């Protein structure tokens, strides 16, 4: 009797599982691989929240051309191994229309080929230029390229008359890619790298590293990471008495990092999209309306400050939605549409895609920001700010 019941239960389960997709027939399945937990959670968590919020909003309005979006979020914990298996699962089993994410460059590079072979559009939320250079047919990315960020920082250093940089980076895909760009571009911008240290992405104390950088005679520190370690770098540098300016990558664009570093974050300079400094934008700025709405919706719903990372997810989904609205749900057509999309106003900047450029953002999508009284502000004319890093001393 018992075994009969067991078999019946199993049969019922199998039936229930196989039956469920029937209800979901008229939807557009969009997968997302995001580092919601783990070392990249300051990226992945706002990205996942943003997607949920937007999908809910779109579905409430009746979906795209009457088709609702079915969002499948997979938490990779920023692990490339998990990203690979989720990508395969989403493409082969769930047969998703497109994948948003992953949050980090390391993961994206690992699944670039999987998306390409599976002929599935991948809208990466990660920064490394290597994701779109060389161009892969199905792979796009919405954050600004890291090479632009490096150039922005070097230009800022030049205007502050600094030439000796101590470089710190984490051993993540993002850190490695940024380090590579810094090494490649330093010479042509007249910047000398006097120290170049790679630390573990889960590091909790970097006193020894910053001590070495300080001893090398660096005038400024450039740190490239997305983990909480970037807050620790600033604290430790100030604690051992480093007084020069500290530059961070565009991975610093979450106010949580500033809160974590406390007073030490004052004066940190980094390039970022305009989402963080909406209030100081002129009304005429074409991005202002988009940014303000996203910020208002996000902060009202989740009661936390908006970050540029959530913005990358916003751009990824909205670009996809816009392309689907225009040409329907044929994957190939949507891909071609994205590739030729011009003038899309997103949170990261104005996107102008082309078959050669799957990022679509220009250098001017970056603004140089700094931290003042625990808030992000636009960095004013550079001459005055020469002592930006030491102001709090």
């Amino acid at each position, binding site marked *: 009797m018992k075994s009969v019941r067991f078999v019946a239960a199993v049969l019922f389960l199998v039936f229930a599982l196989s039956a469920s997709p029937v209800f979901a027939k008229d939807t557009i399945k969009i997968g997302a691989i995001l580092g919601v937990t783990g070392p990249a959670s300051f990226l992945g968590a706002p990205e996942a929240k943003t997607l949920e919020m937007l999908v809910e909003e779109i579905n409430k309005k009746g979906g795209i051309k009457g088709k609702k979006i079915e969002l499948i979020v997979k938490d990779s914990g920023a692990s490339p191994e998990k990203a690979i298996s989720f990508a395969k699962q989403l493409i082969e089993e769930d047969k998703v229309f497109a994948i948003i994410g992953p949050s980090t460059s390391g993961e994206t590079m690992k699944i670039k080929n999987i998306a390409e072979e599976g002929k599935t559009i991948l809208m990466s939320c990660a920064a490394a230029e290597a994701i779109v250079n060389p161009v892969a047919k199905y792979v796009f990315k919405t954050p600004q390229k890291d090479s632009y960020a490096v150039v922005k920082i070097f230009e800022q250093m030049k205007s502050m008359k600094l030439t000796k940089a101590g470089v710190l980076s984490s051993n993540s895909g993002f850190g490695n890619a940024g380090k590579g760009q810094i090494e490649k571009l330093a010479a042509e911008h007249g910047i000398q790298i006097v120290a170049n240290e790679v630390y573990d992405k889960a590091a909790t104390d970097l006193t*020894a590293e910053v001590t070495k950088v300080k001893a090398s005679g660096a005038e400024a520190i450039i740190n490239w990471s997305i983990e909480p370690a970037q807050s620790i770098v600033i604290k430790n540098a100030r604690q051992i008495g480093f007084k020069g300016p500290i530059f961070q990558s565009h991975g610093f664009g979450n106010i949580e990092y500033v809160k974590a570093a406390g007073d030490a974050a004052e004066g940190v300079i980094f390039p970022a999209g305009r989402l963080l400094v909406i209030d100081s934008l002129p009304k005429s700025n074409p991005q202002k309306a988009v940014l303000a709405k996203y910020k208002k919706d996000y902060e009202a719903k989740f009661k936390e400050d908006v970050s540029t990372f959530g913005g990358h997810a916003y751009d990824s989904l909205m670009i996809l939605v816009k392309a689907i609205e225009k040409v329907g749900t044929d994957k190939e057509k949507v891909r071609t549409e994205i590739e030729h999309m011009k003038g899309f106003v997103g949170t990261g900047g104005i996107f102008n895609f082309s078959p050669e450029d799957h990022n679509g953002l220009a250098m001017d999508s970056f603004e140089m920001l700094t931290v003042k009284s625990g808030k992000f502000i636009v960095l004013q004319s550079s001459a005055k700010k020469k002592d930006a890093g030491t102001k709090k001393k």
Partner: protein
Amino acid sequence: MNTQLFFQYIVAGVTYGTIYAIVAIGFNIIYNATGIINFAQGEFVMLGGMIAASLSGFMPLPSAILAAVIITMIIGALIEMIFIRWLDRPSVLRLIIITIGISIIIREAALFIWGEGVKALPYFTGTSVTVISIGDVHLSPQVLWSTGISAIMVIGLNLFFNYTLPGRQMRACSSNRNAARLCGINTKNMVTLSFILSAGIGALGGCVVSPMTYVQYDSGTGLAIKGFTVAILGGLGNSMAAVAAGMLLGILESFSIWIMPTAYKDVISISILLGMLFIKPSGLFGSAEAARLKDF
């Protein structure tokens, strides 16, 4: 390397070493009472830091820390009573797997309660940019707080184990459990007490280091590996040796950056762990003969 740098590295090494020693001492206390390694020790540190950081919003810092330590001690006691106390002559392997399970449960619970972000207590004195300079060597006052509190903790533990009745009873248990029971010592209570003690020590450690290193739901795992290395390096069960071994490992790690990229810092501790386990499993300060008599 000049002397200024030398001392700066020593300071960094002592900072790391203190954290490792605190975790290792927690391992040792439970090891002494039960003969097992409690792999949830790192989670006690995480819990202490997280609870104190959450409470510090509502109450002054000292009471938040005190409350966090007490809550973590209660959690430690509950864990022992629910998962371990009722087992009849459990094997070492079984107990170890239970503690690994507990550590996963605590981690997931912490993820559920606090989310994935990092938390930190405010600096005890000054802010994140306050610097104490001794000559050309600079350090954060929090380094003094954490080494000071750890030193007090070690002294306190020594006094407890040598001069109080429960302390002596615990030592009796660790020397010979059956003999201790024959003398009328309730060995089960001693095991509970050891969990309470090591939970409290871990939690206090988590509080003092959290301004510097932050804590998040999964901080415990990394700490447990380092703490375990230190406990093995010093010799399992010997808390004073753990302090020395902690400092040694911390200083080795901070100086290692001169010869290799710091991303490989963990390689040092893992190599030391493996080396010790192969060559002298009883530890630097342990006796090989005494180690042979233990189960584990």
